[in-house]
């Protein structure tokens, strides 16, 4: 198995080609071979690096160094100095002010923390999760101490706002702003809820965080409580995570014993209590208002919004709901300050993001990377390449409710902003990598079956829509579809995304919509020619029966 350490991307748009990009590309191949690095470094062409007047442009990952204009003579220096010795060659870098907005994010990455820097997963897998001593040894509770004894609640909120932290639970709402809404809303008591329901298929980052570093969540919730003047918090833990529940329970008891939770924390007048709560295995209970209903002992169905939980949350009181990963970023921000945090990631999406990589790559697991890395990097460097050297077909980002990114868009940086512009969702951070053997109809069928099963049934567009879409796609997969199905699927998915009550119905058809957009021909082959191009769908037998 080849371990790719680094990647070289050469721009190959018309202008770059006219200026000798092809020779530059070949020069890289030769020089890299010369240095015996062929096994560790890939050279790829990309259409356009978005640089104007600096072509041909060469991007070296994972440092995200942008060189340009690069001539054949420069290649030797770049390979020797940068790829061989590991030093970026400042003299050959492209002028950053020339950089097109699409890759303006790279400026934020330069000089940032090394790629392997962990913020959220700093302690997970390093400390003993049952030991508060280990937690304190690795800087635990410094943030809470600082907040309680040296900062006012307003200062804590201001610091979080300044850090640019956006919610990691899916929607990417700015965390500081959410806290300030709750702080400003009259009403008491107020509540802090940690959303650890994590039922998005393919996502298991929150589990890793809670199981590996439970104290960080407790500390962060206590900080949140201080910031918004709440004295009670709830952790809603997915029912299938009994180990996470046990570790949180233990951590709460330990924290109380050491005066880090309960009455008079850090010897101050502030008190805060945390109650763990186990879910019962419904995807919809991850949606914040359904979660609140469930906590109140009712059936887990989303409320109509507005009012949002920030004004009308648990028991009708102002409530902060935050994802596990969002909270796990908090102690480091308070400890080191907002400006420290802003140095990581891209300017508009700060910090790191935890991703779960799964599917047809050599390495599956959990990684933490700065905001703004690209799918190509995730697959080749973190995922250590495609399994069996197959070709990449698509990536589904953000779990089942997320978007489908075709291989041609793999250079889009993974951050909230760039993704929004490209119509892609970062969602929960699950990256499902699919190779050429994946059938898009089959993929859509699996996804739609999930939503058909998990729809709570409260609103009609979602209840009927998820069922109908599943029926239609099943028929197509059996070779019994018709061309009219395209219009019908389009209509149903539009209606669902527009009028469903909550995010489940609004996003259930996202993947289908993207598949119809990027892979229409493949779906048509099922309908018109009764052929599944990848041979996954069970068309033949059924056609014979009919």
């Amino acid at each position, binding site marked *: 198995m080849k*371990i790719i*350490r*680094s990647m070289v991307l050469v721009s190959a748009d018309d202008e770059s080609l006219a200026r000798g990009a092809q020779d530059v590309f070949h020069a890289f191949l030769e020089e890299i071979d010369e240095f015996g690095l062929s096994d560790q470094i890939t050279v790829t062409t990309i259409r356009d690096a978005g640089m104007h007047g600096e072509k041909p442009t060469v991007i070296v990952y*994972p*440092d995200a160094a942008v060189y340009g204009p690069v001539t054949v003579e420069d290649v030797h220096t770049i390979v020797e100095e940068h790829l061989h010795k*590991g030093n970026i060659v400042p003299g050959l870098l492209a002028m950053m002010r020339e950089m097109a907005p699409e890759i303006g994010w790279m400026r934020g990455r330069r000089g940032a923390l*090394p*790629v*392997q820097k962990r913020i959220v*997963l700093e302690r*997970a*897998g*390093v*400390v*003993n*999760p*049952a030991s508060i*001593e280990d937690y*304190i*040894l690795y800087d635990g*509770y*410094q943030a809470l*101490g*600082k907040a309680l*004894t040296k900062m006012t609640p307003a200062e804590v909120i201001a610091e979080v706002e300044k850090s640019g932290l956006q919610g990691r639970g899916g929607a990417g709402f700015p965390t500081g702003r959410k806290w300030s809404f709750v702080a400003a809303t009259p009403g008491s008591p107020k509540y802090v809820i940690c959303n650890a329901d994590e039922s998005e298929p393919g996502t*298991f980052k929150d*589990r*890793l965080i809670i*199981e*590996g*570093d439970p104290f960080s969540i407790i500390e962060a919730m206590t900080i949140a409580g201080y910031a918004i003047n709440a004295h009670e918090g709830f952790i809603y833990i997915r029912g299938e*995570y009994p*180990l*996470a529940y046990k570790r949180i329970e233990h951590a709460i008891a330990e924290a109380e*014993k*050491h*005066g*880090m939770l309960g009455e008079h924390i*850090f*010897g101050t007048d502030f008190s805060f209590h945390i109650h763990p709560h186990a879910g019962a295995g419904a995807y919809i209970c991850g949606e914040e208002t359904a979660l609140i209903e469930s906590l109140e002992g009712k059936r887990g169905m989303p409320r109509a919004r507005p009012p949002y939980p920030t004004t009308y949350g648990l028991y009708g009181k102002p409530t902060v709901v935050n994802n596990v990963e969002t909270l796990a970023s908090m102690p480091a921000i308070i400890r080191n300050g907002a400006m420290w945090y802003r140095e990581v990631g891209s300017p508009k999406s700060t910090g790191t993001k935890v991703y779960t990589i799964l599917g047809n790559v050599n*390495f*599956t*697991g*959990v*990684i*933490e990377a700065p905001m703004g890395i690209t799918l190509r990097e995730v697959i080749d*460097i*973190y995922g250590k390449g495609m399994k069996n050297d197959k070709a990449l077909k698509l990536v589904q980002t953000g779990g089942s409710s997320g978007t489908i990114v075709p291989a041609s868009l793999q250079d889009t940086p993974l951050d909230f902003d760039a993704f929004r512009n490209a119509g892609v969702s970062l969602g929960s951070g699950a990256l499902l990598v699919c190779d050429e053997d994946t059938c898009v109809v089959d993929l859509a069928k699996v996804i739609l079956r999930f939503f058909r099963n998990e729809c709570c049934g409260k609103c009609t567009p979602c209840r009927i829509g998820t069922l109908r879409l599943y029926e239609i796609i099943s028929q197509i997969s059996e070779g019994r579809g018709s061309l009219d199905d395209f219009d019908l699927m389009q209509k149903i998915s539009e209606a669902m995304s527009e009028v469903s009550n909550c995010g489940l119905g609004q996003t259930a058809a996202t993947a289908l919509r993207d598949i119809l957009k990027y892979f229409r021909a493949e779906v048509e082959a099922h309908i018109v020619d009764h052929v599944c191009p990848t041979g996954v769908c069970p068309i033949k037998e059924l056609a014979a029966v009919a």
Partner: protein
Amino acid sequence: MKKIQSLEDLKKFREQIIEEKRRKASAGKVELIVTLGSCGIAAGALDVLQAVKAQVKADHLDGAVVSETGCIGLCHHEPILEVVIGDQPKVTYGRVTVDAVKRIVREHVLDGKVVEDYVIDATPFPTI
């Protein structure tokens, strides 16, 4: 346990912990760490933990500490066993079987020879 009352208390408590760690490390303490996340447990980490405890007992390694930690993100390498001897760098073993535990304890802990067959690169991150 006296409760921590201030940042000053926290600092003192932390220094005590560091002192304790240092003392153990300089005494050549052996630590065997099993990663017990759900993924590890599903792959058989609890059996590995049992095996480690049994082997430590069988070989009379009275000073060795068997402890646990969370998932390190390398779910495809589970079960994972980490070995720390004194202040030497940590060695990470992947896809550890019950049989492998015996070899690791005998060859690595007792004889000081790392069992290369099971060693994995513990950084999923590119090191530049």
